[in-house]
């Protein structure tokens, strides 16, 4: 019973093995990819391990407080920012090994040539509440 965030990067992760930009795939390959992702989520719903997922637009805005009575300052996007998150999925699994297994499956989504992308996904454990029995 541990929750993990699976992060998919537009930018910031090491290069995939099958590193071809999506706009160079065939339409059929894109369809197959989208189907794989949907099937993966469905499978997790069926095993009772799915919590949620969202895809994110590549454009973002940085916002910060600018003092009492002033509107927040907005800026960006910054091209030099290292990380750019493409989307996330949260899973609730029995432990780290299962989380790694699932991330590996997701990373096998087909890309150019119908071959697995071998994309690097970032796996981040949730901070939880402390256990009751401490000593």
């Amino acid at each position: 019973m541990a929750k993990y965030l699976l992060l998919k990067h537009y930018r910031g992760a090491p290069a995939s093995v099958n590193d071809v930009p999506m706009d160079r795939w065939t339409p059929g390959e894109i369809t197959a990819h989208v189907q794989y992702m949907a099937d993966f989520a469905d499978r997790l719903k069926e095993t009772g391990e799915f919590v949620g997922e969202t895809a994110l637009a590549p454009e973002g805005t940085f916002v910060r407080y600018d003092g009492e009575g002033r509107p927040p300052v907005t800026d960006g996007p910054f091209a030099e920012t290292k990380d750019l998150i493409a989307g996330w999925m949260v899973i609730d699994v029995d432990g780290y090994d299962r989380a790694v297994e699932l991330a590996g499956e997701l990373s096998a989504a087909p890309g150019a040539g119908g071959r697995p992308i071998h994309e690097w996904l970032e796996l981040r454990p949730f901070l939880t509440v402390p256990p009751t029995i401490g000593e």
Partner: protein
Amino acid sequence: MTTGVDEVLLRRLAPDVLGVLVRRGADFAAAEDAVQDALVEAVRVWPDGPPRDPKGWVITVAWRKFLDAARADTARRRREDAADGEPAPGPAPAVDDTLWLYFLCAHPSLTPSSAVALTLRAVGGLTTRQIARAYLVPEATMAQRISRAKRTVAGVRFDRPGDVATVLRVLYLVFNEGYSGDVDLAAEAIRLTRRLAAAVDHPEVAGLLALMLLHHARRAARTAPDGGLVPLAEQDRSRWDTAAIAEGVAILQAALARDRLGEYQAQAAIAALHADAPAAEETDWVQIVEWYDELARLNASPVVLLNRAVAVGEADGPRAGLAALAELDAALPRRTAAAAYLHERAGDLETAARLYAEAAEKAPNLAERVHLTRQAARLNTS
């Protein structure tokens, strides 16, 4: 389930009624659904006029729900040409109804999270929604987890009691990793363990019940008003629940008297020694180390050895504690936090501050991270 109905009474009926249905020949998965439906109906109908015999009422309604579902299912099955048409035999009479249910829901073929979910629903009588909220997952996800668990144990038959240790592990998980939600999972774990203790005579069941009561007793003192974690040494002991402590100690003593020591009894003995100290400085650390030695003989897990090292640090001084710690794997969770504490006690504040900060980064939960960061900040700014 809320308002106007004694929810705890209803939930207590759940495993009994389930047992009755299964003995009448209903298969476990369908019977469990029927009991849930009956409980929901009770919540709807009882406020207008509660029955004189609640259990009889729930049995009648659950049985009717089961028959309705079975009829609908038969019609569907004819179309699907299902092969598993053979009637499921009831549980063997050798095993008590409630006990059989505990064993089934904690069956080794289930993953821990499935066993926990199934136990809370079938034995605890909680709704899927309540369990989903407690574990912070969508209701549909929890529903799937439970129905898969039911499928997994569908073919299980008990001609003799299972291993009680598997049941205790599940109850321990419910108690120890209780999250939030509208159900108090720690209290629920105690309720279920109490009931198990009444159904089976086993010193480790008593040991786990004592362990839970002794830790539950500290609950009010464990959390600061801001939600922060208050470590044992800093807790306001006047806020400990003395009735729960007295009950836990009495149960533990009766269990220990039977001279069949197990891990839960040993852990409860340690908790009892903490409960016995009017102030942290008066803790009998020498005895606590002895109990950790017992615990390590039963199961020398890294967590036990780490806690033992901390206890040695209290009993024989921080240098002794650090020496005990040095023998343990550096990657062990909370090892750095323990080292920080022992270094501080030994007077090496610089190392302690650095280790507290490092431990904060590795903390598995937010409360511990905040606590450890605060410790580092305290040393860095004093």
